[in-house]
């Protein structure tokens, strides 16, 4: 039984023109990501990870090649069409959380739905509460972003990425700012979402994280160097249990 393709890249190239020079940030990247996969994208600094993620997140368009997101070709879309596509099909998790300051958890999570006219305020709140419960913050709905720890803020950010029930969750170094203990808590959460059938793409330069995902794509100089399935997915929950208990939130 063939699984549904969520993401398909066909020879995607992205050139940046810097002064006289042309920087080839992506030099022909092709892959398919199926529904329910947990993919880590790895590579050294400058290998093109962020550029690739911007492509996947419809924040940018390829110089050549085609990107098909959940059946929709993206390359020729206008800016506002892509904004709408992001709104409906993508959830972003950033390294530095990017919550609105002085704003409650629920309001932060509601944000993507504010730009979706199909939700009224009651539905927005319901969906936000549900997403916050899914990340274990059901009891912190009205906490303001500046009253929360890093781990809590990242949970809110993950809830915000979930709230629109996206086709894919894109995480860019989502554990980069967190200590080991909290990082593992996040991995537990991502694995839980994976288990629930979500498609996750996790960009990181930390090779350890690849062990907890189902597939790993290695980039180098804008090309795919390795694309491997992970037959032995480690449990983040176990790893967390074995960590020395010196870090707490």
């Amino acid at each position: 039984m063939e699984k549904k393709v969520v993401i398909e890249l066909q020879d995607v190239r992205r050139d940046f023109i810097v002064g006289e020079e042309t920087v080839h940030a992506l030099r022909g990247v092709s892959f398919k990501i199926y529904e329910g996969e947990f993919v880590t994208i790895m590579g050294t600094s400058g290998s093109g990870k962020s550029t690739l993620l911007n492509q996947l997140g419809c924040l940018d368009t390829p110089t050549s090649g085609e990107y098909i997101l959940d059946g929709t070709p993206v390359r020729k879309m206008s800016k506002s069409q892509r904004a709408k596509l992001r709104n409906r099909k993508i959830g972003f998790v950033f390294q530095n959380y990017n919550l609105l300051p002085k704003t409650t958890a629920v309001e932060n999570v509601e944000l993507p739905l504010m730009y979706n006219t199909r939700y009224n305020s009651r539905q927005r709140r319901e969906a936000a509460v549900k997403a916050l419960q899914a990340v274990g913050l059901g009891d912190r709905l009205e906490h303001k972003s500046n009253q929360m720890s890093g781990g809590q803020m990242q949970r809110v950010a993950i809830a915000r990425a979930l709230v629109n029930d996206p086709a894919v969750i894109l995480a860019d170094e989502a554990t980069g700012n967190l200590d080991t203990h909290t990082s593992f808590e996040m991995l537990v959460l991502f694995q839980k979402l994976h288990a629930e059938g979500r498609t996750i793409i996790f960009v990181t330069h930390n090779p350890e994280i690849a062990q907890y995902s189902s597939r790993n794509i290695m980039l180098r100089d804008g090309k795919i160097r390795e694309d491997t399935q992970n037959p032995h997915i480690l449990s983040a929950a176990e790893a967390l249990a074995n960590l020395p208990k010196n870090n707490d939130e």
Partner: protein
Amino acid sequence: MSFLNLMKVAIRAIAANKFRSFLSMLGIIIGVAAVIIMMAIGQGSKESVRQNIQQMGTNVLTIRPGADRRGGVRRDPSEMQTLKPIDYETILKEKKFVTYVSPEVTASGQAIYGANNTTTSLYGEGIDYFDIKQWPVIKGEEFTEEDIRKSAKVCVVGKTIIDELFPDGAEPVGKMIRFKSIPFRIVGVLKPKGYNSWGMDQDNVIIAPYTTVMKRLLAQTYYSNIVCSAITEEMSNDAIDELTQILRTTHKLKDDQEDDFTIRSQQEMMETMTSTMDTITIILVVAAAFSLLVAGIGIMNIMLVSVTERTKEIGLRMSVGARGIDISNQFLIESIMISITGGIIGVIVGWTGTYVCELFALPTSIPLWSIIVSFAVCTVIGVGFGYFPAQKAANMDPIEAIRYE
């Protein structure tokens, strides 16, 4: 995003920077208040001028010697001596559209009674003068036809003269006062008129028979003016035509010669006055409006700062699906809210300011449309000066915006 949500976001952004928002509103507040106060004073003065002129009688016509040369061309002195008794007599004989006629000569100087003296104007008039100006004598009598014929040294006086020369409250009627060493017996006291709208004390006058003033005081044979009244205000133009015909004949002017006199109706005076007031009002309002322009630039400045400060927020909103238009609407509504809130406070301040002006006896009247215009202008300022910053926000690249620190 829905309008309501945009409003909420804007209110939150404004509340997050209360002091800064207030400072940028301050320009609008001052501008709107200034416009309203200026308009109120302008409108109020205009109305009071109109009332004043109406009180003087809207059917009054004044004939002055010399051609109509507004704009300060120096006149030949002989040109100022064209109104003669023959003119007056002919008008009396031939008038149809004119009811009352009075020659007028004027002099100014000191009036003296005992140890008291005051600087005043002496008007030599005919007996019709009191009817033309609708200015009754409230104590004593007007002077008579007989007094005119005999060049009698009698006069009626305004209230200010009485206050100045008879400070102890003595009965003025029957007393002899002196004007430039000529004694005049007071026969009547005029009804007080108060100050006119350009600040002149209308009660500081002495009115005597024109013959007396011409012969005994000035030794001149021509009039300063001739004042008349048309039958009604509507007949003013007919009266002017009639008087023009009469005077051209008595002055023996050929067809190709221009009038050597000028006839002005009170109507015209009023128009001149109100148009002068209008000009002053426009100048004041334009000056105040410039402060609104400056205020708009202030808002633009604050909005640009706000956009830059919130670059990361803009990037975030874009990455979760805000389109350019959502972002630009957000900032536009914010700037409109700042300027309209400023406008509302400005209207209140303007109102209060107008009230204070009234307490200081400035005539004021707030035209309703000035308030409506203020709001319209504020909205335009909000949109106009918010547009560029909003566009700047909307055109940001989400990738760079979200990385902005």
